[in-house]
C-alpha cells in the first residue's frame, strides 16, 4: 500500500470498515511510514477527544420558538400593508421613502388591484429584477438568507417588483417586461422595525 492509498483508506480503517486483507496491508504500511502513522494517531486521538462533545439534550422550547418565528416571518412576508410602514424609524421619512411610496401608489392606481396578470409575466418580471447586476449588488453577497420576491404588480408589460432579504433590506424595482430591462429601482433599508 502506498501513502496516498493509506490516506484514502484512513477513515475506513479507523471506522473498522476495511477488509481483513486491506487492514493488514494498511497496518504494514503504517508501521513502516512515520508520516502515515502520525496521520493515523492524529485521527484516532481526535476522534477520541471529540467523542466527549457528542452529548446535547433535546429542548422542547426550541422547537416552539422556531415555529413561532416562522409564523411571524410568514406575517412579515405577506403583501405589504400600510400599517407596517408606520412602525419604522422616523429617519426614514425622507425623500427616498416618499419617492418609493409615490412609485408604488402610482403603480397601484394605474394598474388597478387586484391586477389581472398572467403568472408567467410576473415570473419574468421578477427574474428580470433578480438577474439585474445592480439589484444583486444592492443586496450584496449572502447565501444563507435568500432574496425573496414579496410582490409583483404589473399591467401591460410594466411591473413593480418588490424584493426583500429578511427584515433588513427591501428593493422596489420598476421593470419593463417587453424590453426585459429594469427602468428604475430604490433601496429601503430596515423597512420594518418593532415587529
Amino acid at each position, binding site marked *: 500500500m502506498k501513502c496516498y492509498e493509506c*490516506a*484514502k483508506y*484512513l*477513515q475506513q480503517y479507523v471506522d473498522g470498515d476495511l477488509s481483513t486483507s486491506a487492514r493488514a496491508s494498511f497496518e504494514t504500511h503504517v508501521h513502516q511510514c512515520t508520516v502515515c502513522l*502520525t*496521520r493515523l*494517531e*492524529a*485521527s484516532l*486521538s*481526535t*476522534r477520541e*477527544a*471529540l*467523542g*466527549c*462533545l*457528542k*452529548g*446535547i*439534550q*433535546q*429542548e422542547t422550547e*426550541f*422547537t416552539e*420558538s*422556531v*415555529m413561532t*418565528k*416562522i409564523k411571524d*416571518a*410568514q406575517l412579515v*412576508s405577506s403583501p405589504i400593508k400600510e400599517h407596517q410602514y408606520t412602525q419604522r424609524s422616523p429617519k426614514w421619512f425622507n425623500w427616498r421613502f416618499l419617492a418609493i411610496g409615490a412609485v408604488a401608489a402610482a403603480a397601484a392606481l394605474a394598474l388597478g388591484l387586484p391586477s389581472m396578470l398572467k403568472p408567467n409575466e410576473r415570473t419574468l418580471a421578477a427574474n428580470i429584477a433578480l438577474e439585474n447586476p445592480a439589484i444583486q449588488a444592492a443586496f450584496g453577497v*449572502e*447565501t*444563507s*438568507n*435568500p432574496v*425573496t420576491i414579496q410582490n409583483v404588480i404589473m399591467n401591460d408589460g410594466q411591473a413593480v417588483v418588490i424584493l426583500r432579504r429578511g427584515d433588513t433590506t427591501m428593493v422596489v424595482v420598476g421593470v419593463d417586461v417587453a424590453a426585459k430591462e429594469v427602468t428604475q429601482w430604490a433601496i429601503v433599508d430596515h423597512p420594518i422595525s418593532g415587529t
Partner: protein
Amino acid sequence: LKGDALLDDRDIIALMRSGNSDSFSEMVERYQAQIRRYLFRVTGDYFLAQDLAQETFVNAYQGILKTKTEISFKSWLYRIATNNAYQYLRHKKLVTFVPQDDTKEQQPQDSVDSSNCEDRIAVEEALLKIPKEHRTCILLHWVEGLKYVEIGAILGITEEAARKRVTRGSEEFKKVFIEAEGLER
C-alpha cells in the same frame, strides 16, 4: 401528525409543500439537537449557537418551499448552519475566538452531557484554536458522523478536499490539544 414517526424527511417536505406548514415542527424536533450542538462547537458560544440554530431552521423553512436541492435535508440544514456560522464569524472577526472562563460558566450545565469527559473544556478550547474551515470539517466528521462525500456536499468542495481537511484538522487539533495539556502539567 398522526403516525409521523414513520414519515421520512421527503414525506414531511411533501406535506409542507401541500400546505401543511406545521409538519415542519417534526423536522425541527428531529434535527435541532444536532444543529445546536454543531453550531455550539463551531462558534464556541452556547447562546449564540441557539440563535443561529433558530435562524437556520427559519431559513430552511423559507427555502424548502421555493427550492429543490439535490442533497438530503439533513445535509442542507448543515449547509445553512455552516453559512450562518461563517457569516457571523466573518462579521465579528471571531475566527480565533477562545471562550473566557466566565463564558463557560454561563453555559447551561444540563445542556451538555459531560459524563466521562474530564477534558471537555480543554477539547473545546483546542477546537476553537484551529482554522474554522478545518474545525468545521472535523466536527462534521468526528462528532456529527458524516462521510467525506456528505461533508463535500455541505461545504461545496470535493470529497477528496473534505478528506484532506479532516486529516489536516485532526493533525492540528492533536497538536494544539497536546500542547495545551503539556502546559497544564
